[in-house]
């Protein structure tokens, strides 16, 4: 009995350590954001909200936030449509080079973001495209597509084809099977795919650095430009805002769809 409770204690300590290790950076940054002094230091000696106020009022951050939202909304939505189409094709049809396409689309990113950004930069220059939103969005679509595709593809695999057959036998033409059975049952997969894409796109820095201009720079790029000149806690404040927004999105997804389902942990029957 004694050795068992000791084991449980050790196990609990291990879990606490791992959690602490994972949460540590976030914690440090959060605390640093409330420092009243104009340096990034830890732990802070006195507390203040002033860096939040400064970050929110700072024009580059405002523009970066707005640009980021535009790029994220466009890129994840386009990626969702394209990714869902590819996922359907991979799941339902047989065609030449299917294996190859599957490998390319589903493999974890082999090509670094750096390379993708550089590639789009060269391409954009080649076709004489100004460095507008189009290039940034296109670049982000490529970056997040595998994640959307994988999410929808897994949901499709878990969808019992007999549900669609049953609907057809009951008189539903293909389009109505899609709208009344397939899409509603895929919704958690579609939402989670979009959500992952949105979070990745909104946080993406490396490739964005290449393809954005002063006019289209996203928030991470704006932060980078800021940190090259200043080192005050307003960046930490922005980080805290980031964490809060992402957590809010995930909580909303959990409330409306169930996080287990969204993250495809629970296999739908």
């Amino acid at each position: 009995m004694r050795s068992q409770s000791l084991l449980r204690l050790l196990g609990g300590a291990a879990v606490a350590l791992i959690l602490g290790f994972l949460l540590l950076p976030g914690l440090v940054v959060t605390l640093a954001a409330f420092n009243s002094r104009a340096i990034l230091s830890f732990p802070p000696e006195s507390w203040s909200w002033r860096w939040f106020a400064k970050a929110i009022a700072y024009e580059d951050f405002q523009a970066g936030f707005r640009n980021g939202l535009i790029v994220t909304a466009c890129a994840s939505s386009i990626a969702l449509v394209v990714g869902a189409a590819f996922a359907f094709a991979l799941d339902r049809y047989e065609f030449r080079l299917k294996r190859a396409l599957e490998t390319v689309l589903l493999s974890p990113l082999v090509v670094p973001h750096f390379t993708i950004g550089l590639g789009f930069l060269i391409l954009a220059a080649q076709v004489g495209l100004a460095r507008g939103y189009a290039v940034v969005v296109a670049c982000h679509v490529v970056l997040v597509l595998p994640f959307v595709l994988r999410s929808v593809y897994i949901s499709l695999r878990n969808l019992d084809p007999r549900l669609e057959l049953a609907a057809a036998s009951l008189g539903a033409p293909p389009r109505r099977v899609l709208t009344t059975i397939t899409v509603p049952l895929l919704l958690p997969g579609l939402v989670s795919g979009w959500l992952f894409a949105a979070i990745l796109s909104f946080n993406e820095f490396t490739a964005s650095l290449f393809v954005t201009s002063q006019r289209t720079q996203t928030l991470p790029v704006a932060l980078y430009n800021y940190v090259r000149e200043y080192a005050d806690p307003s960046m930490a404040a922005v980080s805290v805002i980031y964490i809060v927004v992402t957590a809010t999105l995930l909580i909303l997804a959990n409330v409306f769809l169930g996080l287990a389902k969204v993250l495809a942990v629970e296999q739908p029957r």
Partner: protein
Amino acid sequence: MSSPAEGKLSAPPVAPASRTSGGEHFAVALDGVTKRFGKTTALDDVSLMVRRGELMTLLGPSGCGKTTLLNLVAGFLTPDSGEIAIAGRRMTDVPAYRREIGIMFQNYALFPHMSVAANVGYGLRMRRIAKAEIARRVGEALALVKLAGLEDRKPRQLSGGQQQRIALARALVIRPQVLLLDEPFSALDRNLRASMQVELKEIQRKLGVTAIFVTHDQSEALSLSDRIAVIADGRIRQLDIPDEIYRHPLDRFVASFIGDANVLRARLERIDGAVATVVLGAARVAVPARTLQGGAVGDPVDLFVRPEGLCVAENEAAAAVHGLVAAQIYQGGHIDLYVEVPQAVSGRVLLRVPSHEGASLRPPGTRIAIALAADAAVAFRAA
């Protein structure tokens, strides 16, 4: 296993009328239907006529083609050749959603995101029927399967048996031309299965709906069906009422797939019109001659006898073979008696004796004489 030629013999009783009658008197008519998947032929030139109001069972081992046949009738697959008609209408190229078919799957395939009422009413909504009418017919259908009052539940809140009833109600509420049942009972436990079988049969008879039922469970087929089509290797081996299938199997496959069978080595003595005589041990046994076509006098044959076709001989004169009791297993109403008999292909035969005759009378090792009941055996040429 019989030769392909033998398998072909069983098809004609249903085939010839199909082309001329156009299936007018039949709920479902298949004419020379072939379906291939790559190099495998799942169904090979199958013709089948299902009568109005009939419960037809497609029985066979897994992979025999019975589910393919069901999917062809449903319209989920298209045949490579041949024609399919439902209620006299040619359906070969008609998509599933215009075939007026009710189908019940093994896992029920209830829509998980819809309530019970929405599941049952789905087919009616697709037909753009007025809301009040839908509600009325859904209520009727739920009452039919004895689940009135569960309208607002979700499928996952129901037991397996309840889910099955919902699936049945959903399939029946559209008043289908034919009800297709794909191994519907295999996921239920034994007790529930038996009561659901009785209930399904009652509902089917009450509504007079034509049903095609797919199963690999021969006892289920025998107890439920009006007629059984025994399928193996993509062909119909025999099509008949359950009693004929059980007592007069047309080939070795049917004989061994359905029910328990004792196989005994015998010799063909004479073919006399429709009756053949074979010699088994000390006895001469009359069997139908049609399963011995082409056999010559003196050929070895295999005699198939059901356990209830064998009995302990009262006297030596009646005995056909002798053997030593190997085991007796008390089964309540009867006793399974395993007897080692030299003529048996597997070395032993199974007898069912009434348990009131007393188990203790024949302990293992007892030598007993075994007799054959009249009209209880069929013979096939030795494999």
